[in-house]
C-alpha cells in the first residue's frame, strides 16, 4: 500500500466537491492527514470560506462512511499517548520539550499537525509523510 500526505487544500476540495484526488481512488493508495486540518474545515466553513455541496454535516457523514471508514484517508489525531510520545524528548539527562512545536513561531494548528504526524516508535506510517507535510508548509527549525 502506498501512502501519502493529504494537505488541507485537498481536504477542503473533498468537503466542497465530495471527490478525492484521482490518485487516491487507486486501490493501492491511501492518504493521511492531520486532525487539525479536518477541524479547521469547520472554521473556514463558519467564516464563509468553504462552500459544501449540501450541508457540512452531511458531507462529514459521507466522509466518515466513505474515505475514513474504508481506510482511504487516515486522520492522525492527538490523544494523550501521542502527545506524550511526540511532544517530549526523554533523555538520560531529563525531559525536554520538542522545541519546534513548543514555539509560537508555528501557528497552533501547525503544532498539532507536527505532533500528530511525527514518526515515533508507535506510529505505522513512513518518515516521508512528515517530510511531505514539512515541505508543504514547514518552518525552518533554526
Amino acid at each position: 500500500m502506498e501512502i501519502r500526505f493529504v494537505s488541507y487544500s485537498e481536504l477542503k476540495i473533498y468537503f466542497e466537491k465530495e471527490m478525492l484526488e484521482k490518485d487516491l481512488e487507486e486501490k493501492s493508495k491511501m492518504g493521511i492527514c492531520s486532525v487539525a486540518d479536518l477541524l479547521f474545515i469547520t472554521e473556514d466553513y463558519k467564516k464563509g470560506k468553504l462552500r459544501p455541496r449540501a450541508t457540512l454535516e452531511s458531507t462529514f457523514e459521507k466522509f466518515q462512511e466513505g474515505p475514513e471508514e474504508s481506510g482511504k484517508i487516515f486522520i492522525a489525531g492527538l490523544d494523550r499517548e501521542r502527545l506524550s510520545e511526540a511532544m517530549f524528548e526523554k533523555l538520560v539527562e531529563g525531559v525536554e520539550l520538542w522545541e519546534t512545536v513548543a514555539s509560537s513561531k508555528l501557528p497552533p494548528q501547525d503544532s498539532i499537525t507536527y505532533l500528530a504526524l511525527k514518526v515515533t516508535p508507535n506510529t505505522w506510517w513512513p518518515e516521508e509523510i512528515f517530510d511531505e507535510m514539512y515541505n508543504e508548509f514547514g518552518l525552518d527549525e533554526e
Partner: protein
Amino acid sequence: MQDIVLDTNILSEFLVQYFLHRQRNGHFTADQVKITDFLNHRVVMGIRGIIKSYDYMRSHLVVASTFAFLEIARKFESVSGNRYSIEQFSGFIDQPPEWFLVAPLDTSLFLDLLRIPPYVTTAGGKLKNIEWADAIHLATALSRDDCLLATTDSRLKQLTGFQNIII
C-alpha cells in the same frame, strides 16, 4: 455534579496548585484547590467535588484537552513561571490522577465545533471573532454528556446558548 473541562489558563493555574501541594506518594486532596484570579469559587467547588467523590463514585472527571497541554508547552516558561518543571508537566501527561482525563483532539469534535458560532456580539455591540483555539475547549465540553467549561475567555462567556455550561 458534572465533569468540568479546563481551558488553558485554568489548567495552568490548576497545575501550579497541584504540583505545589501533591505529596511524594502522589496524594492530592480536594481542599488543596484554592480560589485565585483564574480559579473562581464555582470552579474550585466543582473540582473539589469531583476529587472528593471520585473514591466512592468514580462518575465525574476534571478534563482538559491535549490542545490545552500543547498551548501551555508553546509558552511554557511564561505560563509555568518556574512554578512547575517540564519533568512534572510531562509526568502529569504520562500518568494523570485517576480523576483527571486528558481528552483527545480527534474527529469526534467536528460536529460540536460546528455548533459554535464564529463571532460573538459583545456587550458594547461589537462583533468579535471566536478564536478556533478557544472553541476547541468549548467543543470538548459539548462532546461530553453533562459537562461544564471553566474558561477565562470573555468572548466565550458572552456566547448566547452556552452560558449555562460556562463557569
